[in-house]
C-alpha cells in the first residue's frame, strides 16, 4: 500500500496558499521529511524556508493517529493595488459649494447673521496663467507571487483621462493652466475656460454678476440684481429693476422696465427695445426700437429711435437725435436737452456765478480807487499805503476775472465743439415738451406736426426745416416754441 499517495496538497484557487493534508489514518511512522518534500515537488511547489519550518514541525510533533491535520506549507504574495491617476483642484470651484446655504462667496454678516444671496457667485473667474488643477499621475502597484513561484503582475493603474479645451494647457508637471482670462467650465469629462460668461438668467441661482469680460445673459435679469461687465453685455430677456454697468456695448434684446433703482452705465453703444424709468448714461449711441419712457439719461453719442418715442423724464444728448414722437398727446412733461454737456454745463454755471462775484468785487474796489484818486496829491502817507493796497486789489481782481473768463470761454468752446444740435422728429413734437438747445430753454405750447428738423446752420444759428424740405427757416424755432429762459 502506497501510504505516501494519501498525503496530498490542497492549493487555493488564487494559488496564494498551499496546505499539506495529513489524513487521520495515515501511518505516522511513514511520515518523513522526504515524503513531504516529494509531495511538494510533485506539484511544483517551491520549497521555501516557510515550507521547511512547517515540515520540520510536522515531523517533530506529528498529529496523533486518527486525527487529520492541515499544515500550511506554502504562501504566495498577492499583488498590491496601485493608485489610479486623479485630478486635484487648485482653484476653489464655485459649484462645489453652490448648494450650501451659506457659501464662502456669499457676503455673510457675522454680526447680524445676515447673508446677501444677491452676492452669491455661481461661476469661477480665472486669470490667464493661473493654475486651475493638477493631474496626479497613477501610482504602480507591487507584483505578487504564487505558491509555484510565478509572478502575479499588479493591475495596471489608470491614468486620469480628461479632455482639455483649447484655452487650457497641461504642463509637464501635470498642472492645468489657463491660457486666457475667463470662466472655468469643468465636468468629469472636460476642463475649459470660456472667455464669455454665459448664464441663463440673473436671479438667486446666479447672484450678481461681476466679470471683467463679455457677459451673455440668455434670459431675464430680475429685480435688484446687478451686472458689471468689463466688456460687452448682452441680455436676451426682460431687465427688471436692476443695475447694469458695462465697459463695452449693451445689447438688450428685450426692454428695461425699471421702477426705483434701475440704472445703466454703458461704456459703448446701447441697443435696447425700450427703456422705462431708467437712470444712467451711455458713452456711445443709444438705439431704442420703441419708447424711452420717464428716463433720466445722458447720451454722449446720438439718440436714434426713428420709429419710437420719448415720453417723460429728462434726456440730454450730445449727438444727433432722431425720434418719431417727442412727448405725448397727454402733455406729459418731457425734457430733451441738446447742444449741451450737463457736467460741463455745471462748471460753466459755477464759473458764471464766480464771474458775477468778481464783477461785484471789482465795482467796489474801483469805487475805492476812484475816491482815493480824487484826493491825489493831498494823500497822507497812510492813505498812500492804502492806495497801494487798493491798486494791488484791483490788479488781483482783474487777474481773477481774466482767468475765470478764460476758463469759461474754454468750456463754452468745448461744449459747442462737442455738443451737436440736430433734432429730427418724423411724427409730432407734442405740447408740454421742454426743449433745451444749448443754454436756451423752449416750451412747446402747441403740438408741431413733423417731419421737422432743428439744427445749427453753417453760421452757427439754430434753424428749422419743415417736411424734409431742406429749406432753412432762421428764427422759426422762436416762433413755434416759447423761449423759457436764456442763460447769461
Amino acid at each position: 500500500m502506497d501510504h505516501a499517495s494519501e498525503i496530498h496538497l490542497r492549493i487555493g484557487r488564487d494559488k496564494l496558499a498551499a496546505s499539506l493534508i495529513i489524513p487521520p489514518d495515515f501511518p505516522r511512522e511513514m511520515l518523513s521529511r522526504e515524503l513531504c518534500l516529494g509531495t511538494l515537488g510533485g506539484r511544483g511547489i517551491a520549497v521555501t524556508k516557510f515550507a521547511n519550518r512547517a515540515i520540520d514541525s510536522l515531523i517533530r510533533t506529528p498529529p496523533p493517529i486518527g486525527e487529520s491535520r492541515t499544515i500550511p506549507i506554502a504562501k504566495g504574495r498577492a499583488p498590491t493595488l496601485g493608485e489610479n491617476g486623479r485630478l486635484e483642484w487648485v482653484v476653489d470651484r464655485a459649484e462645489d459649494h453652490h448648494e450650501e446655504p451659506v457659501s464662502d462667496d456669499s457676503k455673510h454678516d457675522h454680526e447680524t447673521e445676515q447673508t446677501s444671496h444677491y452676492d452669491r457667485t455661481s461661476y469661477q473667474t480665472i486669470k490667464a496663467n493661473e493654475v486651475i488643477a493638477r493631474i496626479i499621475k497613477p501610482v504602480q502597484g507591487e507584483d505578487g507571487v504564487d505558491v509555484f513561484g510565478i509572478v502575479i503582475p499588479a493591475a495596471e493603474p489608470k491614468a486620469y483621462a480628461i479632455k482639455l479645451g483649447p484655452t487650457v494647457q497641461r504642463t509637464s508637471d501635470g498642472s492645468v493652466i489657463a491660457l486666457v482670462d475667463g470662466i472655468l467650465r469643468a465636468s468629469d469629462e472636460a476642463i475649459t475656460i470660456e472667455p464669455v460668461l454665459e448664464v441663463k438668467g440673473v436671479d438667486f441661482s446666479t447672484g450678481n454678476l461681476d466679470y471683467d469680460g463679455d457677459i451673455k445673459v440668455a434670459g431675464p435679469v430680475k429685480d435688484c440684481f446687478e451686472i458689471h461687465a468689463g466688456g460687452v453685455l448682452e441680455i436676451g430677456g426682460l431687465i427688471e429693476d436692476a443695475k447694469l454697468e458695462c465697459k463695452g456695448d449693451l445689447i438688450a434684446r428685450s426692454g428695461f422696465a425699471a421702477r426705483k433703482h434701475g440704472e445703466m452705465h454703458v461704456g459703448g453703444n446701447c441697443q435696447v427695445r425700450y427703456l422705462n424709468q431708467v437712470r444712467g448714461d451711455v458713452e456711445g449711441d443709444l438705439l431704442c426700437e420703441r419708447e424711452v419712457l420717464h428716463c433720466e439719461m445722458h447720451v454722449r453719442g446720438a439718440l436714434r429711435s426713428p420709429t419710437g418715442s420719448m415720453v417723460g423724464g429728462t434726456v440730454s444728448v450730445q449727438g444727433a437725435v432722431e425720434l418719431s414722437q417727442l412727448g405725448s398727446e397727454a402733455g406729459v412733461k418731457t425734457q430733451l436737452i441738446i447742444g449741451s454737456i450737463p457736467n460741463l454745463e455745471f462748471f460753466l454755471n459755477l464759473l458764471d456765478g464766480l464771474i458775477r462775484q468778481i464783477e461785484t468785487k471789482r465795482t467796489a474796489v474801483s469805487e475805492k480807487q476812484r475816491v482815493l484818486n480824487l484826493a491825489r496829491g493831498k494823500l497822507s502817507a497812510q492813505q498812500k499805503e492804502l492806495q497801494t493796497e487798493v491798486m494791488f486789489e484791483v490788479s488781483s481782481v482783474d487777474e481773477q476775472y481774466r482767468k475765470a473768463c478764460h476758463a469759461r470761454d474754454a468750456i463754452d468752446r468745448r461744449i459747442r465743439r462737442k455738443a451737436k444740435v440736430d433734432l429730427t422728429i418724423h411724427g409730432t413734437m407734442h405740447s408740454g415738451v421742454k426743449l433745451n438747445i444749448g443754454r436756451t430753454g423752449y416750451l412747446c405750447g402747441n403740438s408741431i406736426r413733423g417731419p421737422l428738423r432743428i439744427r445749427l446752420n453753417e453760421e452757427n444759428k439754430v434753424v428749422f426745416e419743415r417736411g424734409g424740405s431742406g429749406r432753412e427757416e432762421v428764427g422759426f424755432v422762436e416762433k413755434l416754441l416759447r423761449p423759457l429762459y436764456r442763460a447769461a
Partner: protein
Amino acid sequence: MKILLVDDSKTMRNIQKGILSQLGYTDLEEACDGLDALSKVGAYGPDLLLVDWNMPNMDGLTFVKQYRAKGGKSPIIMVTTESEKARVVEAIKAGVNNYVVKPFTPDSLADRIKETLAKVPAA
C-alpha cells in the same frame, strides 16, 4: 534768490510777497522794522532787500546806513511814501540802489525789481 521784505505794515509785506511770487521768487523773509531786519540779515543773507522808510524802532534809512556800514552789499530798493527829491537823494547817498514811491502798481514794483536785479553783476 533770497529777498528780505522790511515794512511795518503786514498788508504791504503781503502785497510785495504776492508780486514777488508771481515773478517766481519764493524764498522770502520778512522783518517788521529796521532792528528786526538787522537781526535777520546775517543769518538769512538776502540777495535783495525791499525797505520801507517810515517804521518804528529803527527807520529804513538808518537800517540802510547800518547795513552798508557792516559791509552788506546786496541791492536795496526803498519802497516809501517819501517822494521829495531831497529825500530820494538822501536815500541814494545812504546806499539805496532803486526807489519806488507809494502808491505803486504791482507792475511798477515788478519793473523796479527787474531793473535793479539786471544792474547787479553776476556773482
